[in-house]
């Protein structure tokens, strides 16, 4: 455990070095990245070895401010969350070496690295915290540092707004957490996590729900997700990768942790988590489909994946309350594995999007196209990531979902309500999978394939080699984890080792299935190779012509006639109309010889609209209507004092 603290110190040292060396840009980047990666590496190795060696949970604590204690504890769950947390940042850092190339902003870049270091360290502390004070402390530092990372490009107004929104959600979420902790403390009179289980059963549900809102706003559950699709596009891409790949998982960690600590008997908790997961998953992917901004789309896709993870957790929780060990085990393990996978492929995709943004200067799908030829590495790795995130074999996304399915199917034999929940979970997973396919075929098909829609896209060239290398590594990781999933599944199993209810579940039968699964994937790959070979043979020595795409009768089709992202998604969006309001702006046609007319559509977030219309606007109106209080008239100010006295005297 001390080694882990050493790694924090190294990471933080890297961040401080960035500040110290801010004037020498390239040296600063190199040193910082090297030191911080080294720190992450130490942490990664240590946490992996701790996890695999089945070491007993270690604990360490310091006294703080006289009656608090900063207690840290690593159990298997914490260790499991530490792995992506230490694995992704070095890759993101390496990527950032060439991504953050603007010498003009060197101080800002240095500050960015500084907060990056703090973010990574604080996330690790969140995971290791073993009492609520420690947790809250680390949690708040995490929120604050990530805020500064989001507003890196503050000159753009949208980014400022995104940062603002994120800030509000972070703080409001933290307040909910504080409330939950305070409620816990009022029952246990102890800050220690271990005391949570002694809370009376009646209070547990309420506490969980409050904490769920707090953690959910960080994780991005629907409808608390609205900061996510704004903040992620605003941040630099390697930061988005960290935020989406690792940081929002802290919300999941919190939900999981508090669930385990409360050890509540009520089935409602699991049901709430499961249903929230389904809603989050389906709506997340529908919104992702509706967006034309790649990074925004990826952010919504993160919402979707949070939904999938929550479905997994929810299945696990329902399994626990139904005393169905298999269901619980696979639900939790699936959630863990999917979370791990998501941190890899989502980071990959954000980095790909960053490369596109860097080279083509736009994130809008409807202005891209044909990048596969111009940016072959980015294109291919992005394709791999897309397949993975759609949950399709042979990439890793499938494996996590497979586990969740497995758990959910074990719930089919339950009775009544939990049976229906299991059905709904499976169906929504299937729907999410289908929609994710639609969503990512849209991104790949429209941004990378076809013809460039704008000049910028046509001029794009491959990103710098370092960025490409990182993406290749991650794509390869996705493939390996998909084809040989067993070690990673074992890792996930090790991760939930300390979950009381599922402990001791016999995994041998399932691991046999996994080996067969892996075989099936290999068979598929072999067949694929075979048929490709066959195709090669069939084409050997034949004339391969090339020409323009057949325009179905149009003799001169232009690139502007390509199908756009908006039209691609239109029909599916229409199907989900009540939840996904489409905004249409049409200038209309008037007069006999009409002038230029415009037609614009966009999809607004139904949660955002409702917040604005139902909550923010009335609230602001109400506040505004009270502004007369400070009218500047001194006579009435004195009257206030008199009124206050009279009112108080009435209480006498």
């Amino acid at each position, binding site marked *: 455990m001390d080694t882990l603290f050493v790694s924090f110190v190294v990471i933080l040292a890297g961040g401080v070095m960035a500040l110290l060396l801010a004037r020498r840009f390239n040296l600063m980047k190199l040193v910082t990245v090297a030191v911080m990666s080294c720190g992450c590496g130490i942490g990664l190795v240590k946490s992996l070895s701790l996890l695999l060696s089945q070491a007993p949970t270690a604990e360490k604590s310091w006294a703080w*401010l*006289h*009656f*608090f204690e900063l207690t840290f504890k690593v159990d298997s769950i914490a260790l499991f969350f530490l792995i992506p947390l230490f694995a992704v940042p070095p890759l993101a850092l390496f990527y950032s070496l060439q991504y953050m190339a603007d010498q003009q902003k060197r*101080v800002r870049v240095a500050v960015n690295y500084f907060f990056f270091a703090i973010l990574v360290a604080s996330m690790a502390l969140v995971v290791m915290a073993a009492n609520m*004070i420690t947790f*809250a*402390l680390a949690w*708040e*530092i995490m*929120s*604050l540092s990530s805020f500064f990372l989001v*507003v890196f490009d*503050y*000159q753009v*107004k949208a980014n*400022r707004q995104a*940062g*603002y929104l994120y*800030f*509000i959600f972070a*703080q*409001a979420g933290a*307040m909910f957490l*504080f*409330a939950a*902790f*305070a*409620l816990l*403390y*009022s029952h246990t*009179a102890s800050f220690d996590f271990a005391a949570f289980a002694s809370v009376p059963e009646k209070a547990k549900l309420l506490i969980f729900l409050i904490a769920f809102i707090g953690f959910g706003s960080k994780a991005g559950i629907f409808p608390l997700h609205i900061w996510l699709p704004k903040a992620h596009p605003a941040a630099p891409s390697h930061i988005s990768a960290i935020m989406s790949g690792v940081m929002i998982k802290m919300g999941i960690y919190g939900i999981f942790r508090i669930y385990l600590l409360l050890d509540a008997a009520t089935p409602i908790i699991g049901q709430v988590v499961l249903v929230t997961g389904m809603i989050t998953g389906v709506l997340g992917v529908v919104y992702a489909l509706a967006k034309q901004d790649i990074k925004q789309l990826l952010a919504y896709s993160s919402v979707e994946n949070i939904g999938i993870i929550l479905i997994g957790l929810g299945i696990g929780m329902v399994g626990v309350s139904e005393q169905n060990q298999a269901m619980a085990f696979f639900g939790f393990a699936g959630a863990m594995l999917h979370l791990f996978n998501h941190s890899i492929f989502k980071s990959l995709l954000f980095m790909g999007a960053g490369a596109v943004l860097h080279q083509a200067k736009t994130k809008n799908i409807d202005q891209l196209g044909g990048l596969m030829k111009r940016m072959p590495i980015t294109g291919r790795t992005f394709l791999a990531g897309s397949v993975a995130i759609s949950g399709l074999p042979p990439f890793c996304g499938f494996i996590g979902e497979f586990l969740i399915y497995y758990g959910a199917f074990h719930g089919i034999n339950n009775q009544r309500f939990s049976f229906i929940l299991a059905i709904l979970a499976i169906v929504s997973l299937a729907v999410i999978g289908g929609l994710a396919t639609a969503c990512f075929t849209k991104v790949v098909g429209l941004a990378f394939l076809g013809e460039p829609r704008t000049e910028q896209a046509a001029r794009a060239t491959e990103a710098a080699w370092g960025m490409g290398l990182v993406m290749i590594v991650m794509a390869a990781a996705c493939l390996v984890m998909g084809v040989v999933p067993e070690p990673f599944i074992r890792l996930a199993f090790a991760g939930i080792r300390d979950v009381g209810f599922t402990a001791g579940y016999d995994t041998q039968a399932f691991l046999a299935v996994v080996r067969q699964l892996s075989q099936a994937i290999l068979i598929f790959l072999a067949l694929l190779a075979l048929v490709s070979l066959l195709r090669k043979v069939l084409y050997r020595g034949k004339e391969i012509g090339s020409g323009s795409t057949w325009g179905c009768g149009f003799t001169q089709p232009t690139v502007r006639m390509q199908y756009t992202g908006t039209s691609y998604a239109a029909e599916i969006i229409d199907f989900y109309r009540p939840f996904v309001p489409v905004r249409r702006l049409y200038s209309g046609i008037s007069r006999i010889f009409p002038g230029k007319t415009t037609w614009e559509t966009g999809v607004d977030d139904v949660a955002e609209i409702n917040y604005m219309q139902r909550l923010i606007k009335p609230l*602001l109106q109400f*506040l*505004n209507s*009270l*502004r007369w*209080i*400070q009218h500047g008239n*001194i006579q009435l*100010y*004195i009257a*206030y*004092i008199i*009124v*206050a*006295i009279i009112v*108080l*005297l009435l*209480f*006498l």
Partner: protein
Amino acid sequence: MLEFTCLIPLFTGIIAMFMPARLGRIILLVTAVLHLQLTVLGWFGKVTPSLPGYFAAPPDGLLVLLVTSFIFLFISVYAVFYMRETEMASEPHYIGATLFFLASMSMVALADHLVVLWIAIEATTLMSAPLIFLTRSKSALEATWKYVLICSVGIALALLGCFFIVMAMASNHLDVGITFSSLGQVAEQLDPVWLKAGFIFLVIGYGTKMGLAPMHTWLPDAHSEAPSPASALLSGALLNCAFLGIYRSHQLLYQAGLGDFSSRILIGFGLLSMLVAAIFMYNQTGYKRLLAYSSIENMGVIAFGIGIGGLATYGAMLHLIHHSLIKSALFLSSGNILLGYGSKLINKTGNMAKLLPKTFALFMAGFAGISGFPPFGIFVSELLIIIGAFQQGNTISVTIFIFALILVFAGAARLVMRMCFGRNDEEILVPESYGRLLPPLGLLLSSVLLCVWLPDTLYEKILSAIATIGGGIHG
């Protein structure tokens, strides 16, 4: 001899009034250092008050005195550099008034006699009025007028409150000195109705001074119109002094077994202040006014915490310390902003991150601190208040409390971001200088330091202070 904390600044203030500015600055700094030394000596009990019927050094008073003295030193250093750059016409006046102000605040902290406390608090009003008035602009005049008049009215009512408390004693034919310490010993024999009436008037009166809504109306005007070092003093030190008056009264009621009554009133005022501050923060036009409303909000937090009792009182005391440190740092950096942009309007500022990077860092850090982010201490204090409130079962009020905190944060964050990151293409009038950067930095760092390591003596002092109102970390 602890009374010298009042007398020294009083004398040096008189001297400084008639000295040239250059000498005055030295006098200011020397006095600040001397004052701090004396305070520290008093803190450790080396020096004690020598007029027992009138002055005493209870832990709460010492706490406020220390905070006042500490931030006064930093603000004085800042003021010296600030005045050099602004070429303030009436610099001796400023130095004199600020020293008188310090004297009166020290008197508040040490006062034990009901009426002495009252006189001292009224004196702070009168001594600080010239500080607000210093720029002599129309708006400064208006602010001063409102400040003096409203506070005087409030304080006059507090005097009535003092009479009522005396009456509470007289009507039961008790005969002890009307000091808080001796009243506390006979508290249970006091007439409850008079005591409660007295408390109401004291809360209204001192609450006017402390900026509790709805008596807060002067505060945003005065704090925004005063020169920045003076605003920092007003917000960081004066409000605590007024709070001390309320705290003592609450203490008295608690000892008389009427703690519930006074707690409820404090909770009510606390929440009302936070909500009122929230109303005016989200759409504020001036950043100094924004900070002023934030002070109202924080005073509300403190009142709420004291009212809740138990663990929350400890939080409230921590909040008092950290609020003073952070808010004065914020006001000091707002002075830099004012010099830089030449305007108090938020719309005229912007892009601080580029134009005034160091001030930006301070301001942003201060904002993060005041909003309750670690490593600043308000994180701990707010958390403790929330925990304490839940522990006491005040669910509804703590819900409002949290709601108000979120509202205030949302309102302030928008404007702070506008200032720090918004567009602005104008030139900076006065560049940053270290003399005006280091004092706020020092204040912020001390907040961080106190959040990392709280000296035992401070901890024990806080505990013994809150023990008298039934607060405590295990309560």
